[in-house]
Each structure stands twice: as C-alpha cells, then as structure tokens.
C-alpha cells in the first residue's frame, strides 16, 4: 500500500507542479498572485468536456483545443484586467484578480451546457488502463502525469534559458524598469508569460480530469491554493522550485492522509499551515533568492 500511496503522491505532486509554475512565473514578473489561475485550470478541464463530450471531437483534438483556448483566456485576462492596472497600487491588482476568479467560476455556473451541476469528464482508454507494478495497482494516468509534467518542465527550462523571450522573462523578473529601458517589449513578454503559464495549467487541468473525472465550477479553488503553496515552498519566482514544491506538497498531502486518516478532514488546514509557516519563516522558499527591499 505504501507503494500505491507514493505513486499517488507523485501524480498529485506533478499536477500541482504544473499549476504552480504558472503562479510562480506570473509572480516573478508582475509580483501578482494571480487568484484566477486556479480557475484557468478548471476552465481547461471544462473545455475538454465541451469539445469532447458536447462537440464529440476526438480526445486528442479536444486536448489541443483546450490548451489553446485556455492559453487564449490567460492572455485575454492579462490584457483586459491586469495590464491597465500595471501602474496602480498592488492591492488594486490583487482585488481585480479576486474578482476575475469569481467571474470565471460563475460564468461556468451560468453557461447552460455546464451550470452548477457536476459534470463527467472524458477519459481516454490509454489513461484508464490498470496495471500492476510491484504490489500496487495503478492506473496508466498515474504514470503519464509525471512524464508529461517532466517533459513540460524541460520544455519550459529550454524556453527560459535558451530563447530570447525566455531571457526577456527572466530580465523582467529581475528588474522591470531596466528591461523596459533597454528597449524590450515588456508588454509582449508579459503576454507570453501568461500564455505559457496558462497553457501549463491547462495541461494540468486536462490530466487532473483523467485522474478525478468529476467537474465542478469550484474544482480549481483547492488545487489552486495547493499549487500556490507549492510555489511558495519551492521558492516563488523560481520555476524549478515550483516543480519541486509541487512534488513535495503532493507527497506530503497523500502521506498525511495515508498515515493519519482520522485527521484527513484537517488536510486543508495542514496545507495552509505549511503555507503560513513558510511565509513567516522562509518566504523565499527552498530554492528562492531573497528579495531585497529598496529604500
């Protein structure tokens, strides 16, 4: 059984990691905690429902479209709601993000094809096959998720360290004003950041649905917060840290529930407790660099 739990933990961790990367990238460059990010993740899963179950497209097509649509939504949200507030006090941005999060959730409730009722999720055969590994029975998805997440991470690191756009992202994260003065198109780079972050969250959402095939409008809330905690734990602003934090948190959650099942109701409190402890005592996380305060 322990092996089973470890597998579950790794899968869950990878899912959190995928979402956490989006949080950390946006925070790195904008110093904004994008409250709406968890809901982006939820929307990707719903896009799968719309494309595959309503429009009856093949699963592959649905997945590709979902990623595209979700990335597009991320881009749109930045343009409409966050960019105009770039010069405003940070609190305004945060409040807007909260409003956007609620809006995304309630649009789902209002859509007649979705509504407030739980919806099923299309799972392809290759994800649901079960096989034995050691003493554990696991679903194929348990193995696919870490692999895909790993591939995404490698792709992302390549983007960040080997391309001009990636360099731009890192530059903005270090100092936005200086980057702007150097002539970089800051707006475009920020847009790319949101697109990439949302696309990764979309992959997370699609895979999440394979593992937990019930869709609700608030399914993004808790995973969103877990992922944010992961980002903080790993070091906010640091992509590898987000990945690491995701894995650690996923494992911690599963093991907590496995060894202390009578306290499983306190799972969320446990996670938030970790978050608060890190915020208080190690805000830069495990891999992060200390942020200097200019006087």
């Amino acid at each position, binding site marked *: *059984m322990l092996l*089973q*739990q470890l597998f*579950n933990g790794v899968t*869950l961790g990878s899912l959190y990691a995928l979402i956490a990367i989006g949080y950390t990238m946006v925070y790195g460059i904008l110093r904004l905690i994008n409250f709406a990010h968890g809901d982006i993740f939820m929307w990707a899963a719903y896009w799968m429902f719309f494309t595959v179950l309503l429009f009856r497209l093949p699963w592959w097509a649905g997945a590709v479209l979902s990623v595209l649509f979700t990335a597009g939504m991320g881009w749109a949200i930045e343009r409409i709601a966050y960019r105009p507030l770039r010069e405003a006090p940070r609190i305004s941005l945060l409040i807007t993000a909260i409003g956007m999060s609620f809006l995304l959730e309630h649009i789902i*409730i209002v859509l007649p094809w979705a*509504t*407030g*009722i*739980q*919806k*099923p*999720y299309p799972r392809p055969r290759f994800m649901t096959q*079960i096989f034995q590994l050691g003493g554990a*029975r696991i*679903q194929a998805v348990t193995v696919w998720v870490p692999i895909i997440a790993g591939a995404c991470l490698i792709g992302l690191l390549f983007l960040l360290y080997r391309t001009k756009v990636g360099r731009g992202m890192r530059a903005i994260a270090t100092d936005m004003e200086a980057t702007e003065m150097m002539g970089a198109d800051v707006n475009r780079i920020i847009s790319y950041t949101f697109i990439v972050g949302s696309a990764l969250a979309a992959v997370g959402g699609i895979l999440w649905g394979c593992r*937990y*095939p*019930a869709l*609700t409008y*608030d*399914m993004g809330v808790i995973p969103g917060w877990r992922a944010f905690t992961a980002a903080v734990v790993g070091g906010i602003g640091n992509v590898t840290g987000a990945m690491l934090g995701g894995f650690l948190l996923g494992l911690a959650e*599963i093991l907590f*529930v*496995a060894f202390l*099942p009578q306290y*499983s*109701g306190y799972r969320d409190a446990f996670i938030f407790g970790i978050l608060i402890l890190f915020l208080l005592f190690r805000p830069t996380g495990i891999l992060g660099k200390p942020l200097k305060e200019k006087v």
Partner: protein
Amino acid sequence: MRRFLVGLAALVFLAGLAVAQEPIKIGALLEFTGGCAAYGKMAQRGLELAREAGLVPTEVLGRPIELVYYDARTEPVEAANGATRLIETEGVVAIIGTMCSGPYLGAAEICQKAGVPFIGPTTTNPLTTQVGDCCFRACFKDNDQGPVAAYLAYQELGARRVAVVIDVAQAYCVGLGKYFSQAFKALGGQVVATLYCRTGDRDFTAQLTEIARVNPDLIYTPNYYTEVALMARQARDLGLTQPILGADGCYAPELIEIGGEAVEGIQFTTFWHEEAASTEIGKRYAQVFREKFGKSPDAFGALAVDCYMLIVDAIQRAGEATPEAIKEALKTADLEVVTGRTIMTPEGDPLKDFVFLKVEGGEFVFSTLIPAEKAQEIKALMAKGEE
C-alpha cells in the same frame, strides 16, 4: 332599463373576472446550484411537464395557479432568504421544496412563523417536520430508510460485515448512516468500519485503504451522487469488489455519467420508479415523460408533482386559498398521487414504500420494493432488541 341591467351585469362580470384572474401563487424553492442542483432541475422539469400535459390542474377555485421558482443554492441561508422573499414579496400561499434537508431546515422556521405550509418533496431527514405543523414532506424518512436498507443488506444480500462511508457535510448523510448502522447491528450484523468524507472531496484513498484492510462484505454509502460515483471508481481501480449500497442521494443521471462502469451493480433506495407505479396518475405521468424525454421518469420530478397535487387538493377541499386553510387541509390529505397513495399524518410524514433501484447496463433499473409496513416491522424489531 334593460340596457342598464345589461351594463350592470357586464360590470359585475368584469369585476368578477378581475378578481378571478388574480392567480394563486405557489412557491417552488428548489436547488439549481450546489450539491443538489441535479434534483432541483429534475423537480422543475417534472412540474413543468405535468402542468403542460394537463396531468395536474393549472387552476383551482376559478383562479389560475402560478408557480414562482427560487434558487435555494443548497444553502440554508439562501433557502431562508428565498422563503422570506416568496412569502413577503410574492405572497405565496404554500411552498414546494427544498429537495435537500439541509436547506429545508434553514427555511422551515420562517415558514412556520409565517404560517405558510412548506412541503418537501424529498426531504428525508426526520428533523424537518418537527419544526412545526406547517412542515410536511411527501416522502419517507431516513429513520425508516436506514433500517430498510439494513434489512436488504442483511436478509437479501446476505451481508454480515459492513463498512459505512458517511459524508459529514450533510445532515442527511450523517443521519442515514447512523440509522443504518443501528438497524444493521440490531439485525445481527457488524459494522466493521465507519469512515468519513466531505461533499466536494475528490480523493478517497484514505477511506478506501482502510476498507481494503477490514475487507467487509458490503459498503454502505448514503451520500450524494458525485461522491458515490468517484468513490466507486477509485474503489474499483484499487481492486475492491464489494457490492455498494447507497441511498436516494444516488439517484441522478450524473451517477452513471461520472461513475461509468464502476457503478454497475450499485443498488440504492429511492422513492419511486415507473415499474412500481401503482396509481393511474403515476402511470400516465410515466407515459407522458417517456413521450417527451425518451427515458424513464425520475423520482424527483414525480415527488415535486406530488407536492403540487397535495397542495391543490388541499385548496379544493378547504374551499379557500389561504395558508392557514391549506395547512389544516394538508394534515388530513389522502390522495392518489404519482408515487402512490399518500396518506398524510398530522406530524407531516406520510407512509411511503421503499423502491430499490440498481444500475445495470448503464441504466437505472428496478430491483425490488419493500412496502412501508416492513419498515415499521424492522423498527419494532430494533426496539425489542433494545429491551
């Protein structure tokens, strides 16, 4: 002179029309969002169908009946607000709803204080009708549903060791779980594990790990369809093959949509099925439903229609459409409604039969029926056991 009389008659007629046209408003406080959203929608569907198809009267005492819908959001506070609004602003004379016991309890005090009869189609928690004499239900109670399920598990399915998984977020689930466990033990069985989850939980690894360890004969989950479906899926994935027994919360198409093959063979208690239709109106309702929607009618719409019929019947017998009169008339209701003959008691609880359904071939099929009297027998047995 004649013209004057004609004019007077016309005036009186018009005045009469004006008064007669004033509709009688009945509130429909249903859940359209939240954990019980599926039931609210089914209830609305049933009500609209019955009225459209002329199965139930759309006017009584010469006045048209108007249904006013409000979303209770599966939240007691929203239900309370909705009830206040319906009573104060809309001026309803009676309220149908809510589908789930939690929201019902939130609104019940308000209705009781205002003296407006409040009848729940599927509110099975025993506490609901205890709030006052304005509170009624159209269905059976959980302290009967639990023992009947225990009886089925013990006698018909031959289970001796059972694991119970309860959703602690719902008074309905907690109550049912308790009643089932008590009855099962009184019958001679053993509850080897009582585990908990919460509405909205997606991961049941903790609970299922424990179940795998104690290896029961059967799993009883009186929870709502999403949680049951997800848990069943994960149970089957983990290789657990025990039969699963549920309660009326399972009865929604989403159970099969979300659960897939994992929910094949699940049995659960519910209020009605077309194969168990024992009344004329029940059979006609099933027929009209099939014609319009192409599938078997659900119990939630049927029971909502029952509530509607009971209220209209009460208005007719009382001769007036005031909340007080309707309430008194409801207490003595004895009517053949969609789900069977309903005889109301002054406490607000009718005696109803228990239908068991099973998931087979991706559909809900009729399994068996246990009559209302049996539940009383089992309870007597339990009482004796305690002596």
